């Protein structure tokens, strides 16, 4: 191998070659003088007490940095060289392309010897570690390329691709809860059937003392055996896990006893070289064009996203998760699986808020982690963390706890139905025949995954064949025609949700860039268009069933063509690579404010029931009493029509409502025997409502024809002024906020132009408006979580800036008295409402009294509305207004 040798940067250029000491054909050895060169330099000389610079010329020799045979010189004697350049070509005896532990694998020389003539060490010649089970065997780039081409040739020959398979939660789930072992030995246990298939092993040389003592229970994903067998005909499979090597090998033995599928292509954390991320370059340093990955985590593959097929995590042992997850950045992409059982989705929704709480810590941790590199202290910490997790799992026995909970529920149900029998305290003693079980094995992910892998394989080789035909290659193998699997995967995925325009609501915590979030990236990778806020052409609103964002939901409800789906729909699409039918995933739970006062039949969904305490989806109990956080019931002005601005282009309200009927509520979602809550709408006379509204509007204060335009400007201005553009999620929700306000304002139509002189009364109203708005925010309507004081201030300012706002609020307050709830209007000043805590009624009464002439003005204003609203109220009883932000008045 001929190598061009350069002079190096350490010389004092410019130099002049004086003499070449060796000729072509001579053997050269390291540190042997090869040529003489001269250079000039300034020397400080002292002559009779004064110093001056004197130019000196020095001749030195240049030594060979490598061994070999000199082929020929690239320079000649007398030549002046101004910068580093190649001087000679040397035929090397050995390129040291494979090195093992500081030894050249070809010539056996010690590579760690330091040679002062060379600028780089010999160990740097083979920097790439690409062998699965060794880190100390390294190869040069050339060798790596050669090996990889060999691999590609072989794969093409057998028409296969490479597939990198993750273990934990992708094809198996492991846990160390000793309960599993007990259940396996106890045929009477309800979980016996489920855990019968669970394999177990013990690690002799586990990472920690604790890990050595406990058994690992490995549950294979349903259908794994067949899946692996069939996939292995199309793919050469590699195991890539963040578990330790012994763990990886044991699991590989469980899932592949004959070592036919994976062979020795197993790479674990110990050989990964990076303890936080997986990297295809570790195995395929040159080209990843023929590689696909299946993993349940996409954040661990920062550099190989295109090649990744994300799998929904397998959760058989509930609540266990990934036992090796302490070695990975905290999970941030929780999206409960579409194939999940009821219990599983419950679990996911429990886990989600917790994950959000930890979000900030996790983000910080991720940054620290990414920069941490191979810090041994960090590794130690992670090992400790894992040990803690292990200890917790062994001591707490989460599975047993879950089963006991389930048993208790069963028992209670039994007691309720039959005559009370003595309840068995122990879990194992005389179990009822029909006990529910915690562990259910009904995961279908692998079925879809196999389809995806098959279609990828088919598409890949179709393209390869057409490329080859283009190149007129006759042989079976043509490395030049190899397409990129990542690109093909992108194309396949990109078709799935093509043309969908999706808005997320309540799915991501505020302050996270949706376009860079895990879910956002996935939505985009499946070809859908991710939008920050609801616009005309949006097709789907994806809501978090546990915590739907109210503003977007209300906005979407007004637009019949927007399908409101839970995030399980998204998960199902991702998992099946198909635009799944939305019907089973439609979000039907209703916000409290949406329900009319006459509503008797509530819609209650499972998820909501669990989290109503913290979420703003407050669900009516069957008797119509609201599950309240203890805040006083609020009333809002509801008008059937007049939402002219928001609805332009959307058709009239009637269409709107009908759209809701079709998509919003399905008979299957209603409890048996209950009438649909929107039945009343079918018989509702819309014409009457319109007339009434017109009447009502006419009775309002000064009519402003320019109303809508003003509003439009107003909104734009607020957007620009108050919302920092980088905070997409937040800005969109703030915008929603504003828009909602505007929508209601324009409905009331009792507006003054912004420049109109504000009377004393209007100032007061304005203040009161702000107070109420704040109270509304604090009361949980907006979800005060994440609401910064700065943002509140911004909102307050925006309200202050618009006198239109005050009018709207005034209308609202009028409605409040009219409804006759006995609740005084919260006539607070700015200073008072800071805390935003709801005061008892009596206290508010006092407040009103001290508020200079507030009560007077209030009464005046309210009287204006009283008549109109009374009629309105009568009409509304028994009817449902889809887009009205009305709260229940039956409280108390």
């Amino acid at each position, binding site marked *: 191998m001929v190598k061009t040798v350069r002079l190096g940067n350490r010389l004092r250029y410019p130099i002049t070659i004086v003499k070449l000491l060796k000729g072509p054909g001579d053997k050269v050895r390291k540190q042997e003088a090869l040529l003489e060169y001269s250079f000039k330099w300034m020397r400080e000389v002292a002559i009779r007490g004064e110093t001056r610079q004197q130019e000196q010329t020095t001749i030195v020799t240049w030594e060979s940095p490598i061994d070999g045979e000199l082929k020929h010189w690239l320079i000649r004697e007398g030549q002046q060289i101004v910068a580093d350049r190649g001087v000679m070509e040397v035929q090397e005896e050995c390129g040291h392309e*494979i090195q*093992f*532990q*500081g*030894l*050249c*694998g*070809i*010539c*056996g*020389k*010690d590579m*760690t010897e330091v040679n002062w003539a060379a600028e780089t060490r010999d160990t740097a010649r083979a920097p790439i570690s690409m*062998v*699965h*089970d*060794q880190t100390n*065997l390294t*190869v040069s780039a050339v*060798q790596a390329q050669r*090996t990889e081409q*060999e*691999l590609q040739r*072989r794969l093409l020959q*057998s028409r296969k691709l490479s597939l990198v398979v993750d273990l934990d939660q992708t094809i198996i789930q492991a846990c160390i809860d000793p309960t599993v072992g007990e259940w396996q030995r106890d045929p009477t246990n309800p979980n016996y059937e489920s855990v019968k298939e669970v394999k177990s092993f013990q690690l002799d040389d586990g990472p920690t003392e604790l890990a050595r003592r406990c058994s690992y229970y490995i549950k294979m994903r349903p259908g794994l055996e067949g899946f692996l067998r069939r996939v292995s005909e199309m793919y*050469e499979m590699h195991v890539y896990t963040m578990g330790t090597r012994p763990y990886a090998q044991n699991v590989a033995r469980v899932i592949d006893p*004959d*070592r*036919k599928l994976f*062979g*020795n292509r197993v790479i674990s954390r110990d050989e990964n070289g990076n303890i936080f991320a997986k990297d295809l370059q570790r195995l395929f340093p040159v080209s990843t064009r023929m590689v696909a990955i299946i993993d349940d985590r996409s954040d661990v593959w920062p550099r190989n996203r295109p090649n990744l097929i994300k799998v929904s995590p397998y959760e058989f042992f509930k609540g266990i998760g990934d036992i090796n997850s302490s070695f990975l950045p905290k999970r941030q992409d929780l999206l409960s699986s579409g194939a999940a059982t009821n219990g599983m989705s419950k679990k996911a929704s429990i886990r989600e808020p917790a994950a959000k709480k930890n979000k900030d810590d996790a983000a910080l941790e991720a940054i620290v982690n990414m920069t941490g590199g191979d810090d041994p202290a960090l590794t130690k910490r992670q090992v400790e963390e894992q040990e803690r997790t292990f200890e917790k799992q062994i001591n707490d026995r989460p599975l047993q706890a879950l089963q006991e909970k389930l048993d208790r529920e069963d028992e209670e149900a039994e007691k309720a139905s039959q005559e009370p029998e003595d309840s068995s305290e122990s879990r194992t003693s005389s179990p009822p025949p029909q006990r529910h079980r915690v562990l259910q094995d009904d995961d279908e992910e692998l079925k879809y995954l196999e389809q995806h892998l098959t279609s990828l394989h088919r598409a890949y080789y179709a393209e390869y064949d057409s490329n080859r035909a283009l190149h007129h290659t006759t042989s079976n193998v043509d490395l030049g025609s190899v397409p990129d699997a990542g690109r093909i995967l992108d194309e396949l995925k990109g078709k799935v949700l093509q043309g969908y325009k999706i808005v997320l609501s309540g799915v991501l915590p505020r302050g996270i860039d949706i376009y860079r979030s895990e879910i956002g990236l996935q939505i985009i990778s499946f070809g859908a268009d991710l939008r920050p806020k609801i616009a005309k052409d949006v097709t789907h609103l994806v809501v978090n069933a546990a915590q739907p964002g109210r503003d977007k939901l209300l906005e979407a409800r007004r637009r019949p063509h927007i399908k409101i789906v839970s995030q399980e729909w998204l998960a199902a699409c991702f998992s099946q690579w198909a635009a799944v039918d939305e019907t089973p995933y439609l979000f039907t739970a209703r916000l409290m404010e949406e329900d009319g006062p006459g509503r008797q039949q509530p819609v209650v969904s499972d998820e909501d029931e669990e989290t109503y305490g913290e979420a703003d989806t407050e669900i009516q109990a069957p008797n119509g009493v609201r599950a309240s956080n203890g805040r006083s019931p609020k009333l809002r002005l509801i008008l059937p029509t007049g939402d002219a601005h928001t609805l332009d282009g959307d058709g009239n309200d009637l269409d709107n409502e009908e759209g809701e009927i079709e998509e919003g509520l399905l008979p299957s979602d209603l409890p048996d025997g209950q009438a649909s809550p929107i039945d009343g709408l079918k018989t509702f006379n819309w014409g009457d409502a319109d007339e009434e509204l017109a009447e009502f509007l006419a009775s309002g204060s000064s009519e402003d024809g320019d109303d809508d335009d003003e509003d439009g400007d107003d909104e734009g201005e607020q957007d620009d002024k108050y919302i920092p553009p980088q905070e997409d999620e937040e800005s969109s929700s703030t915008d929603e906020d504003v828009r909602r306000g505007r929508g209601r304002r324009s409905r009331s139509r009792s507006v003054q132009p912004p420049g109109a002189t504000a009377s004393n009364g209007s100032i007061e109203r304005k203040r009161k408006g702000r107070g109420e708005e704040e109270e509304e925010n604090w009361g949980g309507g907006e979800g005060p979580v994440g609401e910064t004081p700065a943002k509140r201030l911004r909102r307050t300012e925006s309200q202050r800036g618009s006198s239109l706002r005050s009018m709207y609020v005034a209308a609202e307050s009028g409605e409040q008295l009219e409804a006759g709830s006995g609740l005084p209007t919260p006539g607070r000043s700015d200073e008072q409402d800071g805390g935003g805590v709801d005061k008892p009624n009596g206290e508010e009464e006092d407040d009103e009294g001290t508020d200079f002439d507030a009560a007077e003005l209030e009464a005046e204003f309210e009287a204006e509305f009283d008549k109109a609203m009374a009629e309105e109220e009568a009409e509304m009883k028994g009817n449902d207004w889809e887009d009205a932000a009305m709260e229940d008045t039956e409280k108390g």
Partner: protein
Amino acid sequence: MFFLHNLERRVTLHPSYFGRNMHELVTTKLVKDVEGTCAGDYYIIAIMDTFDVSEGRILPGSGLAEFTVGYRAVVWRPFKGEVIDAIVDTVNPHGFFAQAGPLRLFVSSHLMPDEIRYDASATPAQFTNDADIVIEHGTHVRVKIIGLRTEVGEMWAIGSINGDFLGCLQP
């Protein structure tokens, strides 16, 4: 190559062991400490006997007694150019690893006869010449050491099976 080597080592003994059978204890401790270790460029395989246990000297400060023990041990020192037998451990596209007793050897694909090539499709992966030679996990091979490197307590070697009578050993 194996040698019978006279060596010397200082062994310390805890005061609680002081007594009549002290010298036996010293020998036991020596065996435990030394056997199977890598001492620079050779491995101490087994201790034959101790022939000289000096009088114990109490170490100031700790109370431990120190004995200087002369002993005879079988040592194994691999040499460059030596031919040894080894068992193949793992096989990868660049070559295979083999274990010769305590010594870990790597034989790269460059140091095999030309007709032997890597076959990844076999289970397990192997080096083969498509005839009688199959080198896979567990195969006994005869290897010539062409490079050695030692670090404290560890040794590694590069081997070659390119030569007469090297390579696969017929069972």
